[in-house]
């Protein structure tokens, strides 16, 4: 630990504190460090084999141009025999499709090289993408090439052919037909596919007795139920945050894991000085128990256990009505007793004052974890604040969502049936209920007892193992389907590639039950839309919807809603807030920011992606507030046994600043037992504690220290900024008083070089990163990894500090550890004009380019002295300590971007501003004979994926370019400018917009 104590520095406005612990000193790190290949995950890299060593040598000789003495090995060119249309080798194609994420569609445009989908981009036409994506969408392409995917049909553990399976299925179906489908049950994940709905409708014709159950581990059922309470109809709220001056997020991580995060993040950012006004014009209040990225971006954040949010919104409601907001009378009555409340009165009153002031221009958002009553009350308040129709809208909830909430068609209904052995045939479409169903239902064991169980899944996973028949499921890039977005906007899901294995899609499997015929997905989907849209010039519209990826003019119009005060009031029946204490902790289940609910457990990119807030990789941990940690006498990595009801789970703790006290947050999706080479055995399975009666949070948890410890790999050990001017921030007032605060913070004497510096003419590339909107969601990190063939290195190498991500998102904590604030700063190669890495390289492997003026890293020239990295003030260079690409399977190789060199062992690499994209733009320019590349033509992968549009790239020599205009802003500053390295990347200082009342 460094001895510098806070008081010593006066550099910065806020006193920054140190990281909670230094892993270095912990004994088990020492022990671990002794072992060269320590236990832990070793699935990623195996030691170098002789073959590859020789190939390296070969390669190197080739590099040296000394391949001579022996004739070079014969290589073959295999042209097409019959050339496919519109594929020009060497030129990628882009196709629009949609990624169904837990039921809801995100429109995407997929880059395909010679028929191999390699990279996912957002579809600008799609309302819930607007050209950006979230981490899951970015990473979804890797699942296609997951080497652990199920490659064949399985019957009772034996691999069988597709036809064999189809025969079995046919006979089964005809048998079921005879008894109207009695005893037939379907269990699927949430699906909003119109075609699927149509099929299941037909199903209820052909097999009337069959019952369809829907289960999603994390979904909108509470919101919908809340809608029912409030309006008596199944609706989903959608928001227009760019119309809101005041946003209240109640336990709602709408920039992170909540549905629609991409759109909401973008809308929110539009009012944070991203475009137009340079200062924030909205104010975000967050009330939450965990420390989410939304909370980190909030102007005011109230730490509150999830179980107290109910009480809080009641108190707020009461306050609002007392300040003159007219509510339905029953509701007003119900809220009456809550005029007195245990919460910070100033906070509540200031908030309600603002909400009232901003009628029609405010939003109250409630997280999916909160019970229906809270949602209902939020709906009511939004309605009363005249926000509905303005910043809040309601769209009809798809059947699926409704049925999740409905006990009969939900999981509980199925379990009941299973327990009474009413189920003869169970068809499980997608999902992984065998793993992620609440523990009290013991679903996996129940499934085993079903005579005929058919499982459509991509892996031989926990569910598949419980089933008799297993059908390989097609990845969404392999299949025809369709999907709706939150607001009902429909998109066609079209395949980018023939199924790699002889797999089926949900639709294809289902069609067997409908008419016994094995229809191809294409026919099903096309037929569905032909009936929906009518045959009138359908062909043209069909092509258009495929091309655009969005089916225009079929989105259902917003639902008109009428408040039902009585039922809301009823929902607010007197309920005591639990008194939390060490003996009565709150157990909070969190959707994981990386593996979501576990469906991404076998995705290396996401496993190695540091959690946006904890920076934890390859694991999940029990997050608790530092104070709670002290009271429990545990420190980072100590194993505790969590006892909830009659179940216990052992997992390591991670003290997390800014968390509510006496809350234990565990993220779902880890501890998979049958996931694959990546996901199996990483982290700890929180579902084992989950109870169907309280799926999201509940009091009554007891935590006891086991004495054991667990090594947690984090990508950032040190959380304090050490009072250095790295992330600069101010409040709007401070900024208006002194607009140059940022430049002044990095004030330094006039910088002169002893040399006359080079003059960079023509188009010169630069970048700005707007810290005002950057949420740290880490989508850019994954996008970069996908675009640039960045390897996954594995847990033990992350522990060694050898992660390869070109973008590191630095997260620093501020304030005291209770009411901690967090700031995020994406850190990649700053493309210094006077790059310190260049002169130290003995072989000129990293030099500056004249056109573009970028810091080129020439892999094939690098001999690997690592001197450049040592001399990099930003430490953004990454060294290939081993040959990380060596044991890539042929399947995995298919994902790699042919326009980016795959780096061998022993060379340095770093962010290139996506040189391949710059070069292809320049190529276009040359071919077209144009003089310059228009602004906005080039978008690096990180900028393109960014949901909040925080990263802007362009020509810094062109004063009119967007990046130049941003650099001209007075809150623009270059990091470590005093070194005179002249970074081409600069940052826009962060502005907070606190309520003067609470200042």
């Amino acid at each position, binding site marked *: 630990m460094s001895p510098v104590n806070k008081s010593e520095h006066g550099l910065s406005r806020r006193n920054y504190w140190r990281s909670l612990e230094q892993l270095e000193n912990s004994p088990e790190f020492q022990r671990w460090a002794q072992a*060269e290949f320590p236990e832990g995950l070793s699935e990623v890299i195996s030691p170098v084999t002789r073959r590859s060593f020789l190939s390296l040598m070969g390669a190197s000789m080739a590099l040296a141009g000394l391949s001579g003495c022996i004739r070079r090995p014969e290589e073959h060119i295999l042209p097409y025999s019959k050339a496919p249309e519109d594929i020009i080798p060497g030129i990628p194609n882009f196709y629009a499709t949609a990624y169904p994420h837990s039921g809801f569609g995100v429109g995407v445009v997929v880059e395909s090289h010679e028929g191999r989908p390699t990279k996912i981009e957002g579809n600008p036409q799609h309302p819930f993408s607007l050209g950006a994506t979230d981490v899951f969408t970015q990473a979804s392409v890797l699942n296609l090439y997951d080497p652990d995917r199920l490659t064949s049909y399985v019957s009772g553990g034996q691999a069988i052919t597709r036809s064999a399976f189809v025969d079995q299925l046919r006979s089964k179906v005809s048998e079921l037909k005879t008894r109207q489908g009695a005893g037939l049950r379907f269990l699927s994940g949430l699906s909003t596919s119109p075609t699927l709905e149509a099929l299941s409708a037909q199903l209820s014709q052909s097999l009337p007795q069959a019952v369809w159950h829907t289960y999603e581990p994390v979904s909108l059922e509470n919101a919908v139920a809340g809608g029912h309470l409030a309006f008596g109809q199944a609706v989903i709220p959608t928001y227009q945050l760019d119309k809101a001056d005041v946003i209240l997020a109640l336990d709602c991580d709408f920039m992170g894991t909540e549905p629609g995060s991409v759109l909401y993040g973008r809308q929110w950012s539009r009012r944070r000085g991203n475009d137009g006004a340079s200062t924030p014009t909205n104010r975000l209040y967050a009330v939450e128990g965990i420390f989410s990225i939304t909370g980190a971006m909030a102007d005011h954040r109230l730490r509150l256990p999830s179980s107290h949010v109910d009480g809080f919104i009641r108190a707020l409601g009461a306050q609002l009505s007392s300040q003159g907001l007219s509510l339905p009378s029953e509701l007003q009555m119900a809220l009456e007793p809550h005029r007195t409340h245990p919460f910070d009165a100033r906070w509540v009153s200031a908030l309600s004052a603002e909400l009232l002031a901003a009628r029609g221009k405010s939003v109250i958002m409630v997280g999916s974890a909160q019970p229906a009553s809270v949602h209902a009350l939020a709906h009511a308040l939004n309605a009363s604040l005249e926000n509905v129709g303005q910043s809040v809208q309601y769209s009809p909830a798809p059947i699926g969502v409704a049925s999740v909430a409905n006990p009969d068609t939900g999981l509980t209904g199925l379990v009941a049936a299973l327990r009474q052995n009413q189920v003869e045939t169970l068809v499980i479409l997608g999902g992984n209920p065998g793993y992620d169903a609440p523990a009290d239902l013991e679903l996996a064991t129940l499934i085993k007892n079903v005579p005929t169980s058919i499982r459509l899944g991509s892996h031989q996973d926990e569910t598949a193992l419980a089933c008799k028949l297993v059908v390989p499921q097609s990845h969404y890039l392999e299949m025809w389907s369709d999907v709706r977005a939150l607001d009902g906007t429909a998109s066609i899901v079209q395949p980018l590639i023939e199924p790699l294995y002889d797999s089926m899609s949900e639709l294809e499997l289902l069609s067997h039950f409908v008419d016994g015929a094995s229809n191809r997905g294409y026919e099903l989907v096309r037929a569905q839309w032909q009936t929906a849209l009518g045959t009138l010039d359908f062909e043209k519209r069909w092509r258009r919807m495929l091309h655009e990826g969005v089916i225009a003019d079929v989105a259902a119009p917003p639902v008109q809603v009428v408040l039902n005060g009585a039922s809301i009031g009823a929902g607010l029946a007197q309920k005591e807030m639990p008194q939390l204490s060490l003996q009565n902790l709150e157990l909070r289940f969190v959707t994981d920011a990386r593996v979501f609910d576990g469906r991404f457990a076998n995705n290396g990119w996401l496993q190695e992606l540091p959690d946006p807030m904890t920076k934890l990789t390859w694991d999940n941990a029990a997050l608790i507030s530092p104070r709670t940690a002290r009271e429990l006498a545990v420190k980072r990595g100590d194993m505790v046994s969590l006892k909830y009801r009659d179940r216990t789970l052992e997992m390591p703790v991670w003290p997390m600043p800014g968390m509510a006290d006496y809350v234990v947050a565990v993220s779902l999706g880890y501890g998979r037992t049958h996931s694959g080479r990546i996901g199996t055995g990483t982290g700890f399975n929180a579902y084992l504690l989950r109870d169907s009666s309280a799926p999201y949070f509940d009091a009554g948890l007891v935590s006891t220290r086991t004495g054991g410890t667990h090594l947690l790999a984090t990508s950032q050990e040190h959380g304090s900024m050490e009072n250095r001017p790295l992330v600069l921030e101010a409040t709007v007032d401070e900024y208006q008083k002194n607009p140059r605060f940022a430049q002044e913070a990095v004030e330094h004497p006039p910088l002169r070089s002893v040399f006359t510096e080079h003059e960079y003419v023509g188009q010169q590339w630069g970048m700005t990163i707007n810290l005002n909107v950057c949420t740290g969601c880490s989508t850019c990190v994954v996008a970069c990894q996908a675009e640039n063939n960045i390897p996954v290195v594995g847990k033990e190498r992350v522990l060694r*500090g050898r992660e390869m991500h070109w973008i590191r998102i*630095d997260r620093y904590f501020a304030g005291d550890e209770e009411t901690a604030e967090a700031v995020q700063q994406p850190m990649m190669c700053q493309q210094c004009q006077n790059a310190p890495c260049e002169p130290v390289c*003995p072989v000129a492997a990293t030099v500056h380019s004249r056109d573009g003026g970028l810091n080129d890293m020439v892999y094939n020239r690098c001999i690997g002295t*690592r001197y450049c990295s*040592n001399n990099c003030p930003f*430490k953004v260079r990454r060294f*290939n300590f081993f040959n990380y690409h060596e044991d890539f399977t042929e399947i995995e190789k298919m994902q790699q971007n042919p326009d980016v060199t795959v780096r061998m062992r022993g060379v340095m690499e770093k962010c290139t501003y996506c040189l391949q994209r710059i070069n292809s733009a320049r190529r276009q320019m040359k071919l077209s004979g144009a003089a310059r590349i228009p602004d906005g033509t080039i978008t690096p992968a990180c900028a393109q994926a960014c949901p909040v549009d925080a990263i802007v790239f362009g020509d810094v020599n062109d004063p009119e370019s967007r990046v130049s205009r941003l650099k001209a802003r007075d809150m623009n500053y270059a990091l470590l400018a005093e070194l005179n390295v002249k970074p081409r990347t600069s940052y826009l200082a962060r502005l907070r917009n606190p309520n003067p009342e609470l200042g």
Partner: protein
Amino acid sequence: MSQESAVSALEPAPLVEGPQDFNTITEKVCSIVEAPTPLAWYVFFAIASGCASMLLFMLGYLVWTGIGVWGLNNPIGWGWDITNFVFWIGIGHAGTLISAILFLFRQKWRTSINRAAEAMTLFAVACALIFPGFHVGRIWVAYWMAPIPNQMGMWPNFRSPLLWDVFAVSTYGTVSLLFWYVGLVPDVATLRDRATSRIRAMVYGALALGWRGSNRHWHNYEKAYMLLAGLSTPLVLSVHTIVSFDFAVSVIPGWHTTIFPPYFVAGAIFSGFAMVLTLLVLCRQFFGLKELITMRHLENMNKIMLATGSMVGYAYAMEFFIAWYSANPYEKFVFINRAFGDYSWAYWTMVTCNVIIPQLFWFRSLRTSIPVMFVISILINVGMWFERFVIIATSLHRDFLPSSWAYYTPTWVEMCTFIGSFGLFFMLFLLFVRFLPMVAIAEVKGVLPTANPHPDHRELHAEAH
């Protein structure tokens, strides 16, 4: 007469003790090489060559598997590798320094120790070269650092301190080798003329190049030797200056320090003398050279260590002063972190061994006690190794952005490699003492009183001072 005695009273202890004539010197030195090999030698040689082969294995494993077998990570790109490099180069300084600088200053006391010291220099440089050579990620293309015309039309980057190293160290190695060999020629001739078997005679004869003591040769020889000494002096100073540039030229706080060149040179001489002392103390015990390598030699070396040790101590203090005086928060932090951070244990080991312990040499009794000086000399080498480690590791593990801070722990591979380099060093040194005269015979004869053809002059004394 009285004046005579007065002067003789002022004379320092003789450089060669006991009644010696030319032949006894020849006998004493040559007999070591001619006598049957002592069993102890075989034992030591077995151990040393064992370690050396371990070095080979480690390097093979490294090249085969990748730099990942070392404990390095993202912020800390250099660890034991470069530490060992600087450490060995430093040790390699005493030899040429003793030969060259002391020669120029007519310090005749150097004669009986310079040969061994030069040999040690060569072997240390050999060990040093291993580390920068093998620390690169793709050693099979390391030759790109040499300005060889090639089909890529590429050239090395002459602005890189690493390239300066390549030139400095290889020049230093070459020149030291020549210097050493030139000094050896007349003595090898002596061995040739004493050889009793034809093979020996042939081998030494070949090495002696047919040297026949001709004064017309001595004439050029002395001039060449003197000029070599003159050239080596700036060279020896330049080498560690340039090694220090590896750090001084960078921008990293704790590295970017202008005091480095003198500070590194002082440190190098410091560690170099320590190593020479360690070896000579052993040699004179084993081979009965007490009359040639006298207490006066040892004491002089101890004085030099005391001086250079104090210089190094001054440099440490000055670094801290400047860090504070510069008011640069990054600098300031790095140095406070050195003394009290995660690596403070290394820092305080360094300070104790390099600054505090050598102060014992203020006392004559300790300065002239063989066991004491032996222990201290070893401690000094430990301390100097830690100095390099501290400079490299502590500066890298806490630089500008706290987000990238980390900690570095070596793996067994690095440790074994380091031990192996010692094996190589001692293996070479043992071969040297076995087969070559470890004392410069001709030179020692030259400083005998009887060697002076004009005994009536005071020159002898004048020169002996």
